[in-house]
């Protein structure tokens, strides 16, 4: 696999050090890996800061549009008794602007939260918040594949202490591997729950064909799913493909914030 090749290419030049002056201790490799991780974290944080800054500016623009259209609506209502042949059409358009501003604000808010993800390399993450966030950010990708994506809420608070970026990426990869293989007209539901005493993210699928098993087989053997499985493993989780109507990401070794739970 491509990932494996890259890993080998980065490790092989360092293998000599393992039996060298370090007395068998692979310190240079870990130092280099640590430095790479720090560099990646800094780069992600930079990317996040710039994106978050722009989401604030987008919200400012939306606020101007909202107040300007609101003022148009106010002025329109002040002239309700005066003759204006296009009153209804005008009023309808103002309402459309209001709705679209609200949509934009919600997207900018979620994008802002997403952009702040790399602020802390490890932090507590409520899986219910995460499902809401990811569904909002992923809806468009699924919609382009003609697959519906929703979340169902859970009353239980399930808080993991892990890398927010890696966790979101893993769940996104799982969702993406599903909608890439599901036929048009399918639907997916993402839900956080406790399963076998472990935090779990459940993806349930509804497909407009008889053979859900065959669709699942395509997903489970896809490259995207393999990467998602590997990514889940690195987070201390495991991907379960024996769920009748979907997949589960079970966090067996990931730290859980018991106080929050």
């Amino acid at each position: 696999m491509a990932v494996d090749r890259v890993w080998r290419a980065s490790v092989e030049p360092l293998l000599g050090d393992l039996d060298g002056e370090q007395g068998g201790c692979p310190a240079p490799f870990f130092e280099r890996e640590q430095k790479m991780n720090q560099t990646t974290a800094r780069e992600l944080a930079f990317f996040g800061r710039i994106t978050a800054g722009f989401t604030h500016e987008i919200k400012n623009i939306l606020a101007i549009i909202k107040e300007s259209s609101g003022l148009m609506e106010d002025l329109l209502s002040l002239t309700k008794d005066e003759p204006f042949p296009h009153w209804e059409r005008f009023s309808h358009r103002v309402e459309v602007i209001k709705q679209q501003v609200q949509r934009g604000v919600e997207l900018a808010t979620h994008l802002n939260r997403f952009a702040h993800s790399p602020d802390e390399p490890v932090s507590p993450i409520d899986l219910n918040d995460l499902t809401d966030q990811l569904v909002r950010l992923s809806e468009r990708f699924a919609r382009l594949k003609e697959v519906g994506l929703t979340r169902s809420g859970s009353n239980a608070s399930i808080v993991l202490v892990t890398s927010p970026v890696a966790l979101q990426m893993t769940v996104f990869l799982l969702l993406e591997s599903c909608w890439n293989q599901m036929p048009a007209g399918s639907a997916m539901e993402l839900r956080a729950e406790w399963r076998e005493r472990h935090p779990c993210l459940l993806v349930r699928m509804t497909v407009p064909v008889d053979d859900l098993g065959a669709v699942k087989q395509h997903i489970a053997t896809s490259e995207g799913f393999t990467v998602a499985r590997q990514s889940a493993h690195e987070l201390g989780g495991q991907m379960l493909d024996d769920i009748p109507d979907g997949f589960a990401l079970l966090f067996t070794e990931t730290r859980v914030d018991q106080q929050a739970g």
Partner: protein
Amino acid sequence: MEPCKVLLVDDEVEFVLALAERLTIRGLHTQVAHNGEQALFVLQDYAPDAVLLDLKMPGMDGLEVLRRVKKINPQVKVVILTGHGSEQDAEIAQRLGASGYLQKPADIGVIVDTIKRACSGFAD
């Protein structure tokens, strides 16, 4: 009864002018300032009942304006209206005596209610 006098402070000129007009339509008396220094200058003459204040502005930021407004006149009610605020900012603003904290863009009804409650002293 005299209408509630509100000083709106925001560097987004189009935003603050449109909002001021909407508040005026709803029976409030308004004045605008586009930065912190201007707000403190207007505060002396205008003597508002409430200040609707943005946090992130070039020059003096909203929290500093809040601190100075409260120092000049502790009776003035200050409502924060920001698109940049964090939970930490909200806590600091509350500690400095803000009567309300709203996220931009907020519903006009919510803004009017919050200002009126602040002016009538309910928010304290």
